[in-house]
């Protein structure tokens, strides 16, 4: 039966080594003050939740690689990401896939709230050939004469709907608040 114990303890010990090394040591070394004690307004937290809910992370990263490693910087996606960029929000949205561009500094690159509404409602209307899915459930389509307290979404020619107008919902507002908050303050690495 000696083999049984070698097997079980060996398997557990080797497992624990990487668990400590790759998960717990980085957690201990993480700079608490920079990361978790930032004040994050509730609309941004809600926007982050919607970003997670709609699975934007499956097509977009939020991790800019350092200058000289890939062309992230040259594409204008910002400077190398740091832990404090994420405002302590979890789940993390680092992402692993760039079907769409990195969004770490999208608030700086595309500061227009109206553009984001149009893009989220009908991505192809502003980015021809885009394969980003539309998110119409973040909007309300109402009669064009109805009086609303939110501004209507601009939809170019073909994408506008006869006799109707499109109004962002509260959720669309939160999501765009969040996108606009993705705004790396530093410009140097």
């Amino acid at each position, binding site marked *: 039966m000696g083999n049984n114990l070698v097997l079980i303890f060996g398997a557990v010990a080797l497992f624990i080594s990487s668990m400590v090394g790759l998960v717990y040591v980085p957690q201990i070394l993480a700079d608490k003050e920079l990361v978790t004690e930032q004040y994050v307004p509730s609309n941004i937290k809600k926007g982050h939740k919607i970003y997670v*809910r709609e699975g934007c992370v499956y097509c977009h990263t939020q991790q800019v690689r350092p200058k000289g*490693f890939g*062309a992230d910087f040259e*594409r204008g996606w910002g400077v190398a990401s740091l832990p404090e960029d994420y*405002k302590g929000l979890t789940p993390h949205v*680092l992402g*692993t*896939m*760039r079907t769409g561009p990195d969004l770490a500094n999208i608030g700086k690159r595309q500061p227009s709230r109206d553009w984001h509404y149009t893009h989220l409602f009908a991505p192809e209307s502003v980015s021809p050939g885009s394969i980003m899915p*539309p998110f119409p459930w973040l909007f309300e389509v109402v009669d064009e004469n109805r009086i609303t307290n939110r501004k209507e979404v601009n939809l170019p020619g073909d994408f506008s709907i006869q006799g109707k107008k499109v109004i962002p919902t509260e959720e669309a507002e939160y999501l765009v608040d969040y996108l606009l908050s993705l705004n790396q303050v530093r410009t140097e690495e």
Partner: protein
Amino acid sequence: MKVRKFDSAAERRNFIDRDSSKVLLSFFTSGMIWLLIGSTLAIIASFKLHLPNFLGDISWLTFGRVRPLHLNTMVYGWASMTGAGVALWLLTRTLRIVIPIQKTILTGLVIWNIGLTIGSFQILGGYSRGMEWLEIPFSSAILMVVGLVPLLIASLTMLGNRASKHLYISVYYIIAAFVWIFALLLVAYVPDFDTTVQGGMNWWYAHNALGLWFTPICLAAAYYLIPKVTGRPIYSYSLSLLGFWTLALFYNWNGFHHLIGGPVPTWATTISIAASVMMIIPVVTVAVNHHLTVVGVFKRVINSPTLRFVVFGAMSYTFVSLQGSLQALRNVNEVIHFTHYVIAHAHIGMYAFVTMVLFGSMYYIMPRITGNEWQSKSRIKWHFWLSAVGIILYIVALQIGGIWQGFLMNDPDIPFLEIVEKMKPFLESRSVAAILLTTGHIIFAYSYFKIIKRDSSEKSKIVTQNFGD
């Protein structure tokens, strides 16, 4: 413990196979249903990636929910349930003992299925936990973990009460796998981490789910089935042990190669890169053992449905692992990171390796636990070729496309939308592959439901024997 005497090894095997049949069939049937669900989700997700408006108005079918659900149903439904069944069966054979606590295991499986079903609706409903491979919320994941407990207990009990003196290499892999998946889920669900540390944990987990759960089970199956069906002993036993321990040592340090260049400590990614390269040791030792055992009896491989699938899987394991070591290198990673190439790489692992080995194992196990034979030779052939051609198309299309995508993205003068446009034909090819694969699965499911329904009094031991199993 009751000790039963048998006149021959064959009689013992028959007895044990009959005794385990209810438990194993429950695992296989659950796995089969999840496979069909997962395949449907795969087709929807794949089409959405080149036809973004397809089902575009339905929030719960948006790409960002269907794609993770595809992964979860395939991973925690199809591959985990079928894999657990195959693992239990391998333990009965290698330890020469029946499966204990069968009722508890079955109750566990029911709870696991309930957990995964609730979790699926939670993902579609927008309640995902948001991390890849860990989308299922705590409330339903806990049910899946509860379902795993009896498996851990059963496997350790079997190990303790074994009737075989010698521990065959497959046992090492399986016992370790049951211990590891448990530990992994615990770390992934219980503690809280800071954002970027959580990112690291996420990839440490996801890489290990493959490396410490599916890989060991499927290597164990290949280690058992290849010698069994070819009738030749494994090439080198001591190499196989070296392979196990080096896998246990290096694989679990690999996860951070998913975050090279990201906001995680550089030393951690460096360790992962080194460990990824070191994976060459376990992979080559396993490759020597698997491949040299079949050299010279290749005809047997072609004729046996089991070996066709299992050897295809074993070859894919060698390929995908060497590819993995290569793509962890910084200058290769610089190109392929964040591209479709990696998605294809993951499918060589989960499909060309894991799923193919599971198919092959089921072709071997099912006649033995049901007492029936596979009825149609041509259905097995169709299944094999649809799976093989489908996955090869998938891999070739997305890996070529992905490498190109990587070079285009690293050239800042090329507008992003142009890259999106150039990738479309590759994404369309993937949809063709998805249809081929799903057709294969439907054919397999049909054979499967035929063999479990068939009355064993009709004796037609034709197909399996003709194939040489």
